[in-house]
């Protein structure tokens, strides 16, 4: 059964690894450039020794050189979705073409069939997702030091979340496939659903995955502990009257809250500190991977039940 499952999954797995290799071919040279520039311009040493605002010129130079590349890289947040949906395709095709009935009328039980047919794409998604995570963790290194690792684009492609994203896209497409038995519809809707879920989590849920902290201070100068934190919402009051309010979840760069003319205002911030990076990463990864497992279990139940 393992051989059959691999044979049915072979092309898609190789294409998924090909996409990973293609990304590596693109990112490794630019990543080497970035790390080079980061070290040789003294930016790394500067950031290591000082708070970021005192390395202004070096940061400016670095950004000018790599900003377009970094912006482009934000699109790579779609890659786990593509990989997951791609790896789900053979299973859905098996259901659509009715070839699963061929396997079910050989001598293996459905339990063994399911284990092999779903286990292999799961392992492949784990492998490729892990590869993506490794590649991006390295490539995002310099920009993570610069913009803070809680910056949405950086957070999305570092740590372990890419593994969760890949598994989630796989699970979603497989569950839809088990429901509809239509390849094209399941894969397209699976990808769109992946994207929509990601947007929802990025902008709404993520800020609350780990309880955020609150801070209150007086005056226009933001406290230094907010330098590499993510501001979730910010209010300013003068004599108890609200004069400024802002939110927007995890959107936007590190908040610059120094607003002129608000010298006497009291600021209230809800924020995620830099130290919450790993708790957030692990919670979000577990969330996506857990939902992926539930979706795959649903697909298995559905497939066993329908006939």
């Amino acid at each position, binding site marked *: 059964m393992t051989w059959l499952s691999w044979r049915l999954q072979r092309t898609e797995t190789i294409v998924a690894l090909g996409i990973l290799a293609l990304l590596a071919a693109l990112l490794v040279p630019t990543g080497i450039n970035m790390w080079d520039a980061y070290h040789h311009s003294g930016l790394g040493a500067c950031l290591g020794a000082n708070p970021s605002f005192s390395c202004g010129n070096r940061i400016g130079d670095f950004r000018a050189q790599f900003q377009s590349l970094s912006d482009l890289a934000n699109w790579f947040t779609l890659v786990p979705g593509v990989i997951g949906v791609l790896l789900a395709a053979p299973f859905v095709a098996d259901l659509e073409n009715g070839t699963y009935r061929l396997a*079910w*009328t*050989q001598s293996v*039980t459905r339990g063994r069939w399911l284990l092999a047919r779903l286990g292999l794409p799961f392992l492949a998604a784990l492998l490729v997702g892990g590869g993506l995570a490794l590649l991006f963790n390295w490539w995002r290194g310099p920009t993570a030091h610069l913009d803070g690792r809680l910056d949405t684009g950086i957070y999305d492609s570092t740590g372990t979340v890419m593994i969760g994203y890949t598994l989630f896209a796989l699970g979603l497409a497989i569950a839809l496939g088990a429901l509809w038995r239509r390849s094209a519809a399941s894969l397209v809707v699976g990808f769109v659903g992946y994207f929509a879920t990601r947007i929802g989590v990025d902008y709404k849920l993520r800020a609350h995955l780990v309880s955020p902290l609150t801070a209150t201070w007086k005056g226009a100068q933001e406290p230094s502990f907010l330098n590499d934190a993510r501001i979730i919402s910010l209010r300013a009051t003068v004599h108890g009257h609200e004069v400024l309010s802002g939110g927007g979840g995890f959107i936007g760069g590190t908040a610059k809250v120094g607003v002129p003319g608000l010298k006497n205002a009291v600021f209230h911030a809800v924020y995620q500190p830099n130290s919450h990076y790993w708790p957030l990463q692990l919670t979000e990864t577990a969330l996506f991977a857990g939902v992926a497992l539930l979706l795959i279990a649903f697909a298995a139940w559905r497939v066993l039940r329908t*006939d």
Partner: protein
Amino acid sequence: MSAALETQALGRRYGSQWALRDCTLEIPRGSVTALVGPNGAGKTTLLRLAVGLTRPSAGSVRVLGLDPHADAADALPRVGFLAQEHPLYGGFRIEEMLRVGRELNPGWDDDAARARIAELDLPLKKKVRSLSGGQRAQVALTLALAKRPELLLLDEPVASLDPLARREFLQSVLEAVAEREMTVVLSSHILADLERVCDHLVILATGSTQLVGSIEEIVASHRLLTGPRDGAEDVTRTHEVIRESHAERQSTLLVRANGHVYDARWTVHELDLEEIVLAYLGQDAARRREAVAS
């Protein structure tokens, strides 16, 4: 020894629609049985229930004495199944399809499978996708046969084939039966396809069984009687009337005779199998019309 296939009041419902209803039959081991009925009579459902692809909504089914669902691990290796659309993995080469059989079946006979493919003049490297309908059917049959099943179920195996491929396919089935002890059930909505190869017949109509028996016995027991109209009632009392038509003074009855017809006023004609089957299917159609009318 238990029957090859045995059902008791077997039924399967999809939503509110019964695909198969109250089907009771027994197919003896070693027989080659034609499962005949109009489209939608439940032939496919019955075979899928027998191989465990579908679960019964009512009644029970046993293959070789086993429950195809609960005892799947024991039953599956002993039952071969060929679905109507001959599902095969399109992107596989023929040799890869054989490997599928080898990997998935403990009783797989690889030599026999390769010999059959060679006999069919099919190159092992050829992709399944590029085969003709007849060739696909043959490869699918090879897969089902090399599993060495005790019971082979073929669902409309020749429906999609041209006349020549039909002949060749059925010939292959016959050869396989001659080679080793095996029970075969073939379904079709056209009897002529199967008459040549079968020794047993099951007529399935409106989702329930109408007639089960050996073809020899069925042909021997069915007669067409022509005689006086006023004598028709006497005949009905002893024999089972399948179809009747009445003229002003004369009646024509197609009966399943219970012994001889002694009444000398009746002329007795023998019938061939096709006429008998048509009578049953006609009876079924008439019943359905009545059901619709009422």
